[in-house]
């Protein structure tokens, strides 16, 4: 059913803004949530899109850092990030009422299948963040969220209200021991999942495994991919992934791709 999953073209409304921090809070573990007041961006953004944030001090680090949007409320957008390196450490120091310089909304976003049921969201590590918003968009429909990580400390356990969440950890320190794909296989094996659709975000090996499972069970699947990004807006051609034999740009043509169109066997 690839035809049903035609990706919408990236919307042209993008902005370069300096937005006020209206909330910035720890979410447990390495995670923090930042809420920015950016009315134009909020008006045009959709789940699965990302923003490209200037996390530098004195031009260090030199590149901006991309983060998926995790929600919208009125004039504000929010994102959830893990503090892992110089950029995110700088970001963690931003205080309320300070300004954050970012580009967005960028990329295409998820496209929820109109009739599929249940909708299965699979988030590996910080790859779970876009699903916080997608869950809101899917309100009223049957949704399962499978969220996994290597260990409990890398899980984001601030799942939104009302969602059916299954946690997995590689080491069994929280939730089920094993990979998200073990849980996904079980879910897809159930007769009630014949009309399911799968949406996944996480490291490439996980996405590949999810894509193969979706193909095996014959259900549509979209994946939000990750690549190193310099410009974030289609200017440098750095964030290439091979899709149907040609290099496409994760920042401009993605980050969401139809899983069966990605050339998974290409090195990356």
């Amino acid at each position, binding site marked *: 059913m690839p035809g049903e999953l035609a990706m919408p073209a990236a919307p*042209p409304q*993008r*902005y*370069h*803004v*300096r937005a006020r921090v209206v909330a910035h809070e720890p979410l447990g573990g390495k995670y923090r949530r930042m809420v920015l007041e950016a009315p134009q961006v909020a008006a045009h953004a959709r789940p699965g899109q990302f923003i490209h944030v*200037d996390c*530098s*001090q*004195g*031009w*260090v*680090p*030199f*590149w*901006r850092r991309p983060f998926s949007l995790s929600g919208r409320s009125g004039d504000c957008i929010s994102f959830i990030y893990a503090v892992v390196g110089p950029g995110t450490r700088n970001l963690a120091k931003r205080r309320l009422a300070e*300004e954050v*310089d970012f*580009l967005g909304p960028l990329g295409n976003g998820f496209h929820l299948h109109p009739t599929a049921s249940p909708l299965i969201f699979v988030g590996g590590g910080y790859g779970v963040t876009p699903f916080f918003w997608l869950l809101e968009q899917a309100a009223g429909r049957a949704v399962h969220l499978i969220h996994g990580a290597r260990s409990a400390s890398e899980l984001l356990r601030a799942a939104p209200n009302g969602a059916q969440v299954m946690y997995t950890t590689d080491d069994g320190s929280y939730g089920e021991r094993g990979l998200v794909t073990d849980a996904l296989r079980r879910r897809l094996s159930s007769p009630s999942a014949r009309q399911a659709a799968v949406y996944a975000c996480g490291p490439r090996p996980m996405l590949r495994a999810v894509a193969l499972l979706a193909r095996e069970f014959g259900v549509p699947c979209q994946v939000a991919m990750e*690549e*190193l990004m*310099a*410009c*974030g*807006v*289609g*200017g*440098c*051609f*750095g*964030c*290439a*992934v*091979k899709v149907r034999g*040609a*290099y496409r740009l994760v920042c401009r043509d993605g980050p969401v791709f139809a899983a069966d169109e990605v050339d998974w066997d*290409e*090195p*990356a």
Partner: protein
Amino acid sequence: MSQHDATTDRAPGRAPAAPAKGGSAPSLEPSPALDLGVQLGGLRLKNPVLTASGTCGYGEVYGDLIDYNRLGGLMLKGTYLEPKLGNPPPRIVETPAGMLNSIGLQGVGVEAFLRDKLPALRRLDTAIILNINGSTVDEFAELAARLNGVAGLHALEVNISCPNVKVGGMEFGVDPRAAREVTEAVCRASELPVIVKLTPNVTDITVIARAVEDGGAAALSVINTLRAMSIDVRTRRPKLASITGGLSGPAIRPVAVRMVWETARAVRIPIIGMGGITTAEDALEFLIAGAGAVAVGTASFHNPSAPLAVLDGIEAYLREQGMTRLRDIVGSLETALYRSTKMEEK
């Protein structure tokens, strides 16, 4: 990078929401008209700030984020006769004060450029310069000829300096005879002003610069990226799939300024200086060293409005210095002072 520290406190002008205006110091005197115009051979630019090739796509990338009409020109992404797949990922690496890239000139090919990209560019009030590539001299010439009589193109920039393609690319740019041959072939085939882009990956850039001048080039672009490499020590693998790539950004600026200075003393044709320009002060270094114009590349990835900030800052500087023409600053490097102090020390 101490001169950039001021930007961290979010001085106005970093985001287009509040663009900085040069020369806005309160003054009752009407400011004298500033002539920012630049003549590059047969190519007239309204001001000296361009975008560097490969960093703004075909001009569509930042068009909605900044006003391209304010710039002197856009140097577009490298294009071949045929579409190019580009190199496998990973293609980019962040490095101290810069980055490596090995894009491999992924591009749509000239026919798709003319059909899909150029029409929108014709609506812009800025010079449009196409970066052309080939794997043989004949390919360069054929591409140049194909671009004759095309409305909306103002000049060609001949890329004999890409370090990231297997055939063609840099091999033309490191050999004076090959460099001259390509230049002559393109100049013969083309009706447009021909700019030739030089590589820094040579022992003496002036030898190549003179060969290209003799070949008939209208202007030179100096410099392309420096061949470079970065390794992941955990996996002991190169961070780029192509192993080596090209270094750009502030890290290469002092090398670029030096090469512009050397080139300016060796040739009579004008130079477009580039390599790590992020601010007006950076750009002024190039102009003082002898560049007639400048291009902003990698800095746009960090700050899309960097080219505009550079332009505003150049304007403000000229006013501060009481100058009325950009060309008064070009090549105005003052070296006498150092010599006399040194002599006094003796």
